[in-house]
């Protein structure tokens, strides 16, 4: 039975449980809800939760684990002889899965009968062609062990699915029965539902945390793997970046880090003054009517996808800069893609970020500060400069640091605007590249994931992660310290 049906069945059972639980509780109190410990709907919700949550939890766990377990079992059953030279067990297993999926599809479309699919033999039936008919393209002819494994795979999967249906429905029924049997007027359904809701919320929070942990761990393990193949010293202190998948690559991070910081620096040099000044204007000078129009407009900038900014860099800003600083003009610039192009466009992207955060922070400065300053005969700009900005400074620094970590992590604008050459140069009109852009280029295309050239992406990612994490923590620390000041 497909998972959708199971979910629907469990849901139906849960809704029935709600109605039954509610009426059973009412009946036990002689129809008068005032005699119950909790409101009738809590008794219903109790049965509903007890039916739904454990069953769906088991279903989710099963769906995740089943392919892993079946895969392992089938993979262990594959004889070594079935693995051709220059291939791996993993590649053969993906063939197996593909054939199994193809057979499933063929059966469901009716081109192969279910019995045939289980008993096909490669010697007699042209499986590759028959699967090709239903749209499953295979790279080579199917060998006997692969076909056998695929058939086993299908058998195991269908048994497992049947088991899953039975288990999940059984758990649902058990929960349903147990909850219903506990339902009577004395039962504290409200408290149980309350703790059930708390458990749900805790589960949601832990999923978020565990996922983060998983991502970090996978980064760490792959980075360690990389450092086994490539010396860490050369990675962190090498000044050349020239990966070649044939071997003999030099993978020094310094040119990439330099590119990242240079572009981020230009971006911040654009975004911080403009963003900050517009925040000051919006919060201190602008009449309410202008503010109510201008602020949302500014925030629209934040909603533009970065790829659009990238196009803007590539098609508008780059050529424009080239006209001024390129061949015909000052002759500092070779091509439209340069640190300056990407930096300027990224700066524009960050303006709403800085301005919106700073605006909130400036607004959080108590009106009493402004009154005090105006009351002493200060002008607006004196008040802003000498009272409001110093009071808001820690928050503004926090906003700038958050913007900086956005800039460091930005990819698309760099790919399109800054070029792909990893180089250490002071000229802002040279093409350079960043850590993120190189992660993309190391992982796109046919890469062998065991080579240092691919694994370096994880080391790059890890470095970036540590840097942005550090910035974020620092920013949060500053923002928090600032908050305490007025409370």
């Amino acid at each position: 039975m497909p998972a959708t049906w199971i979910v629907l069945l469990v849901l139906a059972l849960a809704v029935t449980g709600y109605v039954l639980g509610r009426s059973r509780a009412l009946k036990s109190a002689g129809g008068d809800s005032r005699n119950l410990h909790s409101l009738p709907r809590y008794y219903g919700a109790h049965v509903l939760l007890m039916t739904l949550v454990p069953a769906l939890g088991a279903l989710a766990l099963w769906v995740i684990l089943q392919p892993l377990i079946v895969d392992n079992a089938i993979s262990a059953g594959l004889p070594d002889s079935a693995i051709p030279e220059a291939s791996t067990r993993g590649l053969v297993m993906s063939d197996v899965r593909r054939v199994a999926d193809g057979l499933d599809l063929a059966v469901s479309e009716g081109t192969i009968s279910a019995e045939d699919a289980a008993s096909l033999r490669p010697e007699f039936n042209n499986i590759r062609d028959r699967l090709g008919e239903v749209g499953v393209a295979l790279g080579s002819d199917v060998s006997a062990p692969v076909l056998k494994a695929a058939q086993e795979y299908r058998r195991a999967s269908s048994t497992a699915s049947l088991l899953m249906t039975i288990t999940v429905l059984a758990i649902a029924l058990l929960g349903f029965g147990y909850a219903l049997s506990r339902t009577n007027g004395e039962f504290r359904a409200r408290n149980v539902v309350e703790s059930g809701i708390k458990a749900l919320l805790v589960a949601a929070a832990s999923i978020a945390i565990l996922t983060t942990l998983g991502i970090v761990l996978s980064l760490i393990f792959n980075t360690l793997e990389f450092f086994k193949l490539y010396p860490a010293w050369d990675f962190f202190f090498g000044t050349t970046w020239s990966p070649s998948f044939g071997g003999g690559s030099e993978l020094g991070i310094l040119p990439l880090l330099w590119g990242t910081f240079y572009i981020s620096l230009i971006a911040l040099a654009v975004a911080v003054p403009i963003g900050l000044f517009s925040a000051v204007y919006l919060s201190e000078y602008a009449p309410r009517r202008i503010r109510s129009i201008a602020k949302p407009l500014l925030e629209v900038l934040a909603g533009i996808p970065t790829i659009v900014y990238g196009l803007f860099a590539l098609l508008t800003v780059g050529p424009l800069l080239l006209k001024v600083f390129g061949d015909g003009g000052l002759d500092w610039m070779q091509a439209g893609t340069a640190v300056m192009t990407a930096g300027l466009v990224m700066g524009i992207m960050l303006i709403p970020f800085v301005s919106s955060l700073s605006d909130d922070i400036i607004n959080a400065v108590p009106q009493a500060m402004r009154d005090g300053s105006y009351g002493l005969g200060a002008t607006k700009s004196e008040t802003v400069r000498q009272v409001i900005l110093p009071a808001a400074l820690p928050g503004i620094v926090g906003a700038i640091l958050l913007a900086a970590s956005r800039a460091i992590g930005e990819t698309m604008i760099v790919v399109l605007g800054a070029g792909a050459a990893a180089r250490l140069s002071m000229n802002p009109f040279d093409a350079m590249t960043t850590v993120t852009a190189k992660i993309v280029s190391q992982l796109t295309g046919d890469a062998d994931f065991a080579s240092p050239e691919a694994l370096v992406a994880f080391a790059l990612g890890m470095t970036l992660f540590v840097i942005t994490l550090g910035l974020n923590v620092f920013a949060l620390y500053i923002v928090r310290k600032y908050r305490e000041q007025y409370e």
Partner: protein
Amino acid sequence: MYDAPTLERDVTEAKTKFSARNVQVWYGDTHAIKDVNVEIEDNTVTAFIGPSGCGKSTFLRCLNRMNDTIDVCRVEGDIRLDGEDIYDKKVDPVQLRAKVGMVFQKPNPFPKSIYDNIAYGPRIHGLARSKAELDEIVENALRRGAIWDEVKDRLDAPGTGLSGGQQQRLCIARAVATQPEVLLMDEPCSALDPIATAQVEELIDELRANFSVIIVTHSMQQAARVSQKTAFFHLGELVEFGETGHIFTNPEDERTESYITGRIG
């Protein structure tokens, strides 16, 4: 504290500092101040009393044009400081506020050092030509604010770190430092305990020697203690204005009497 007020009151015959004629204030559509006429004398403490929302703070804020910072607020009528219309187009509200200092309900020291808090006004108005002169202004202001002895050893400490009463006296010292002619105080003691209140009241009485002081207060005892003139506001109208002793002992208007005896408000 003020022990024998009535005697001295009769002696002081000061010249008029502020004169308000037919003042109207609107917040959007709300008519907050209705047709107020009042003469405020120099070297006098004038108290504005009245129930909450009666417009006394609003009227106070008209006197140094602090209401300009509120978008929806509209002021009509004629308010003259030393005979000059302060709502004239030629008048710079910034300069006016340097002349008419203000102390707020809640102490609002800037998040700066004590020294910088006091030096703020003199610096923006260029009152000191040298560091030594500024030091002197700061010291004088702190002495006038009756807080010098408590803070003279820690002028570099943040002003926000002082106690509530000290903060309020710091704010008074800060207002005094710009050498204003009039000092407006909007319920300066409402956030203070009785001891700090007594200190501030004493200070107000001393300040009278150099300034015209206008104080908004909810405490009738306070008005009786510190002021020579009292104005009673009710529902945006100036009901009665006169000698403090007279208002408290022999009010002419029925509403004033009800308020003072605690029947309304």
